[in-house]
């Protein structure tokens, strides 16, 4: 437990310079975009004369040199002020936090599907590397991994929403359905089925391959040969010895893939009209709302860092070698 705390603390400190660099990048992009925060504010409030404009620029610290401007920007970020959304005419952080839950639910479910089913199929394929079912599963997963998520989404819509009419075509829930409680829950579930599938299936293929490749490596290890020599039943050997050890690198990928999946959910949310952060990024692009887009970028960076931290801790808990040095197993 103490090990985990020290690890957590060390990682938190290590994240500070990284976030600072991300902030520099966001600041550079913001500077490169036409117009500044005052222009955006005035466009919304109805404009002002040039005297008032320079007054506002001085007040917001926009008339000073680039370094001072960056320091003002970084100080605002540190206070949790991500700027002003020109498209929504509200603080960026408010708009994003409103949309975050839908995205996190979508991604959480997609990750559960991808990791759960993917690693199970991976164990199935990796139980006998080189066998027919291994080769069939590996080739299929390679083909699935080649699919663009948004296209898979459209194909699923054609099959399940247009042809079979089983599932809704988009949205998070039926609008003005008056449903509540369990009915509403089921309604949202029906709406999420296709987006979760189109986001998750691509990563399912990835976890399948990772688990399978990892197991193929473990089979070659001495301890597996030793366990086999001891006459441990095959089923137990596969699950308790090979699969358990093969799981570790796959768990690491869970954190690393989160950022990539966040990127994938932008397009999937666009295809299925899910009001999440991804669709928000698209709205920001189409309305040229650069502060909002960069806000999404910064929040994503924070989320990715947090998820990687959690994965590290999960890794420390799962890894038998880490546990043995502490007092608790």
């Amino acid at each position, binding site marked *: 437990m103490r090990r985990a705390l020290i690890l957590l603390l060390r990682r938190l400190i290590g994240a500070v310079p990284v976030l600072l660099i991300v902030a520099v990048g966001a600041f550079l992009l913001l500077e490169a*975009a036409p117009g500044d925060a005052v222009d955006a504010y005035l466009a919304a409030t109805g404009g002002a004369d040039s005297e008032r404009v320079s007054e506002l620029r001085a007040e917001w610290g926009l008339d000073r040199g680039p370094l001072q401007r960056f320091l003002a920007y970084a100080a605002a970020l540190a206070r949790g002020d991500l700027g002003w959304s020109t498209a929504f005419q509200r603080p960026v952080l408010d708009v994003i936090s409103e949309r975050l839950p839908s995205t996190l639910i979508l991604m959480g479910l997609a990750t559960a599907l991808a990791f759960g089913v993917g690693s199970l199929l991976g164990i199935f394929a990796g139980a006998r590397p080189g066998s027919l079912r291994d080769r069939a599963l590996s080739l299929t997963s390679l083909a699935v*991994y080649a699919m*663009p998520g948004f296209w898979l989404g459209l194909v699923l819509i054609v099959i399940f929403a247009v042809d079979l009419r089983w599932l809704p075509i988009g949205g998070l829930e039926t609008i003005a359905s008056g449903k509540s409680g369990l009915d509403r829950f089921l309604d949202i579930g029906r709406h999420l089925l296709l987006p979760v599938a189109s986001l998750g299936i691509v990563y399912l293929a990835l976890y399948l391959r990772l688990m399978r490749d990892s197991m193929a490596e473990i089979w070659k290890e001495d301890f597996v040969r030793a366990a086999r020599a001891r006459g441990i039943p095959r089923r137990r050997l596969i699950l308790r010895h090979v699969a358990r050890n093969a799981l570790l690198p796959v768990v690491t990928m869970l954190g690393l893939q989160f950022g990539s999946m966040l990127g994938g959910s*932008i397009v999937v949310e666009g295809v299925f009209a899910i009001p999440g952060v991804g669709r928000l990024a698209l709205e920001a692009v189409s309305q*040229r709302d650069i502060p909002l887009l960069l806000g999404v970028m910064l929040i994503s960076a924070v989320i990715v860092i947090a998820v990687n931290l959690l994965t590290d801790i999960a890794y420390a808990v799962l890894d038998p070698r880490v546990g043995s040095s502490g007092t608790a197993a």
Partner: protein
Amino acid sequence: MKILRAMILTGEGAAGLGVLTCLVLAALTAPLFFPGDPLAIVGPPLVSPFSDTAYPLGTDRLGRSVTVELIYGARTTLLVAITSAATALGIGALVGTLAGFFGGIVDEVLMRITEAFQTIPAFLLSLAFISVTGPAIPTIVLAIALGAWPQPARIARAEVLSLRERDFVAAARVVGMHPLEIAVREILLNALTPVVSLAAVIVAAAVLIEAALSFLGLGDPNRVTWGSMIAEGRTVLRGAPFLSIVPGLALVVTVLAVHLTGRGFVAAIGARRIEA
């Protein structure tokens, strides 16, 4: 040549290389067989595939030939994917080599920057970059490369770190070679093999990112891309789903071919190592 022969022997490599060769040939010869504007209207709208020999894959909503669009789309896809992957590999190899070779504070700073780039979802970074700079082929290439260079940088750095202590580098140092000369002549060239085997993964990802960007309308508006074809077809998804499905299949085949080629390359290198 030896590697090429070994790759073809792997089966996976043969399939991948075969498909890729066809794609490249189709992309290069497109103006010879289909001169004129691929976006020109050539016939009635929404002809279904395989119903008219003049338009083997049918026509789209505006009466443009899907076949011609598909072939010209291959040009854009290959151009963007290959140049952006090459750019990403170049930046990555350079940053990784510098970090690994100089170590110390240079290493620390470069690796923090690499890590910062990795915390931002690559696709979001491309999106932000293009909305600031505007969609044109060079900015799209750069946008994709920006999201892809950290991984080769890490691999190049690890490779350099392990190579730095080897005998032939120490020998070069003893002979009195300049550190920079050692970095380029001895280390960079030796670190190239693992970086190149990563190239397939990066090209495949670049194809998919380019497709997603142009699907969202952020591609070069003057060029046909498979992503923009899917987006176009989406407006008539109920009546003519093939318009979205066909270019998507082209994407799947291309990405799969790139992956297979990469696997073939790795297998061929492995086989050569065993032989040696």
